C-alpha cells in the first residue's frame, strides 16, 4: 500500500490478509490462492503488509475491549491515512470486525468477504469459474458463523461452488442453523471446557455424514478446525478441507 501511496495511486481494493492468512501455514495457502485469482482477474490490489495488525476480534470476543479498541484505532489510523475505501478479506472475523465494529470508531469502508468479491468479479465477467477437476464431485459447504449468521451471507460462496459444477450437498445444520466449527469467540486459542466431545468433532462428523469428498470452507479458522476433525477420523486421505478460493484457483490450475 505504501508503494501505491508513493506513486499517488489508489488501488481498486485493499486485500486485508489477516493474521491467519499471514502466519498460519495452512491459511497462507488460501491467501496465495486468492492472490492468484486477483491477478488472474486483473484486479489492481494492495496489501498493508507489515502495517497490518490484528483487527482485535479475538481480544474483543475474549472480553478485552481495551485491547480491541487499541488495535482498531491503530488499524483505522493506517487505513484512513491511506484513504482506503474498499477492503476485501478472506477471513470472516476480520470481515465482520472491520465492517461492523470499525465504523463506530471512525473507520468507514466498504468491506467484502472474499467469496462476495469473487462473486462480483464473476458477475462482471472478470473471473472465470469453471468446474475443471471438481465437476460433479460431492461437496458440502460449512457456513462460517461470522459470514452467515453474523452477516447474513449464505449465497455468495454457494453461487461460486455451483459455478464449479459440483454436486453441492447440504448438511442438516446449514445456513442460518449451521453449527459452529468451535473456533469463534477466541476458542481457537484455548482449550475447550470439559464436555462430551469437541465442537469441531461434532461438526466434522456431520460433514463426513454427507459423504462429501471435499468440505468447502470460507474461513481460515473453520479450515483448521475441520482439518483437525478430519484427521481425528483418519479420513485425511479421502476427504479434503478446502477454501472456496482454493477450489476456484485449483480448478483452473492456477
Amino acid at each position, binding site marked *: 500500500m505504501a508503494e501505491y501511496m508513493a506513486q499517488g495511486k489508489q488501488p481498486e481494493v485493499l486485500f486485508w*490478509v489477516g*493474521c491467519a492468512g*499471514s*502466519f498460519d501455514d495452512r491459511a497462507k495457502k488460501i*491467501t*496465495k490462492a486468492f492472490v492468484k485469482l486477483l491477478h488472474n482477474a486483473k484486479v489492481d490490489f494492495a*496489501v498493508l503488509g*507489515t502495517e*497490518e*495488525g*490484528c483487527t482485535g476480534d*479475538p*481480544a*474483543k*470476543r*475474549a*472480553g*478485552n*475491549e*481495551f*485491547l480491541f*479498541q*487499541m*488495535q482498531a*484505532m*491503530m488499524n483505522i489510523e493506517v487505513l484512513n491515512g491511506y484513504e482506503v475505501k474498499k477492503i476485501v478479506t478472506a477471513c470472516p472475523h476480520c470481515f*465482520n470486525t472491520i465492517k*461492523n*465494529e470499525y465504523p*463506530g*470508531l471512525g473507520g468507514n469502508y466498504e468491506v467484502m468477504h472474499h467469496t462476495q468479491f469473487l462473486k462480483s468479479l464473476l458477475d462482471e465477467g472478470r473471473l472465470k469459474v469453471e468446474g475443471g477437476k471438481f465437476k460433479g464431485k460431492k461437496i458440502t459447504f460449512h457456513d462460517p*458463523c*461470522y459470514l452467515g*449468521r*453474523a*452477516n*447474513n451471507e449464505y449465497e455468495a460462496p454457494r453461487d461460486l461452488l455451483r459455478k464449479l459444477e459440483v454436486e453441492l450437498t447440504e448438511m442438516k445444520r446449514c445456513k*442460518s*442453523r449451521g*453449527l*459452529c466449527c*468451535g*473456533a*469463534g*469467540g*477466541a*476458542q*481457537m*486459542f*484455548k*482449550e475447550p*471446557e*470439559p*464436555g462430551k*466431545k*469437541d*465442537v469441531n*468433532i*461434532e*461438526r466434522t462428523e456431520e460433514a463426513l455424514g454427507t459423504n462429501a469428498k471435499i468440505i468447502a470452507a470460507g474461513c481460515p479458522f473453520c479450515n483448521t478446525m475441520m482439518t483437525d476433525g478430519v484427521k481425528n477420523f483418519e479420513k485425511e486421505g479421502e476427504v479434503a478441507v478446502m477454501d472456496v478460493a482454493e477450489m476456484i484457483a485449483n480448478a483452473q490450475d492456477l
Partner: protein
Amino acid sequence: MAYITKILFLIALVLGVGYFTYNIRKVISRIKLGQEVDTSDHKKQRWSNVVRIALGQSKMVVRPIAGLLHIVVYVGFIIINIEVLEIIIDGLFGTHRVLSFLGPVYDVLIGSFEILALLVLLGVIFFWTRRNIQKIKRFWAREMTSWPKNDANIILYFEMVLMILFLVMNAADLALQRGVAAGTFTSETASHYIQVGSYPVSQFIAFLFQGMSEGTLIVIERSAWWLHILGILVFLNYLYFSKHLHIILAFPNVYFGKVVPKGKFKNLDSVTNEVKLMMDPSADPYAAPPEGAETPAKFGASDVMDLSRIQLLNAYTCTECGRCTSECPANITGKKLSPRKIMMDTRDRLEEVGKNMEANGGEFKDDGKQLLDDYILREELWACTTCNACVEACPVSIDPLSIIMDMRQYLVMEQSAAPNELNVTMTNIENNSAPWPFNQMDRLNWKNEN
C-alpha cells in the same frame, strides 16, 4: 341477589386486574434497575420485527410442528378472549350474552370461538405429551429443575381447564336454550336463555345434559361461567410468576431486540474515551480528570444492575423453550453452558435483587451474592464460541450472547481473570499485533514463499 353477584364480580375483577397491575409495575421497576440504552434508531425495522416475529411468529415455524401448533394455541387463546369482553359486561350489568344483538355475526363469533377452543385444547394436549411422554430433550435439561418443569405443565393445565369450562358453559347454555324454545323450561331465570349463537363443538357435549332439570342446568352454566372468568383472572395473575409472561413481554422485547447485524457487538464508549486519550500524544496522562467528569464506569457486568434494561427485559421474556440451548455448539457437545440458563439465572437474580430492595425500603442491601459465580459460572462463560446460534434460534429475539460478552468483559477488564491461554493470546496481540508469537515484520513473508 342479582345485586350481590354484580358486586362480587366487580370485586373479583378489581382484585384480579389490580394485583396484576401491581406485579407488572414491579417488573417494570426491576427492569429499570438496568442501564439505560438508546433505542430510538431503526424505528421502521423494529415495527416490522414486531409484526413479523412477534405477531407473525416467523421464528416459531422454523420448527414446523411445534411452531404451527403454537400459532393455533396463540391465535385461539387471543381470539377466544374477545369472549371475555362479553363476560365482563354481562358480569357488571347482569345481562346475559349481551353481544347477541349482533345476530349472525354473533353466531359466527361464538362458532369460531368454539372451534378455536377445541383446537387449543388439542394443541395443548399435544404440547403436554411432548413434554411429559415424549420427553423432548430440551425440556429435560439441567436448568429445567422442578419449578420450570411444573410451571410449563401448570400453564398447560390452566389452558385445558379454561377451554373445557368455556365449552361446558356453552353446552349448558345450549341445553337451556333448547329447553326454553321447547317450552319445557319456563322459569323467570331460564327465560334469559334465548336462542342465540351457534355451537359447532359444544352441541356434541350437550347430550350429557339431556334430561337434566332446569335448575341443575342453570347451576352448571353459572358455575362454568364463574369458574371460567375467575380462572382467567387467576391465570392473568399467574403470568408474573411464570415463563408465560412472554405472552405480553414478547411484543416489547421483539421491538427492542437487536436490529444491527448479529456479528456487530457494541463498542464500549467508556473504553473509547480512554483509548483516545492514550493514543492522543498531546493529552497529559497524569492530568487530573476535569471537574465534574464521571467516575470511571465499571467495565462489563458481574450483576444484574450492570446489564442493560433490554437484557433484563430479555430475562423476563424468556419462554424457557430451550431452542437456543438445543442449537448451542457448546451445549450440544456437553459443556455446562446453556444460553437458556443464562437467561433464567438473570431473571432469578433480578427477582432476588428486587425482593431485597423491597425488604430494605428501596435500597439494595449487599447480600454477598451476584450474578457471576453465584448463578452463572465462569466455566459457562468461557465455553461460548460467540456463534450467535442462540440469538438466531430465539423466537422472541432474546440475545443471551450479549450477557455472556458483558460478563466476560468484567472478568477480563475488572478482574484479569481470563483463562491462561487467552492471556497469552492477548499478550501476543499486544506485543506482535497477532494472536500468535510471530514477528510483525514477517507479515508479508507469504508473498515470497511458494
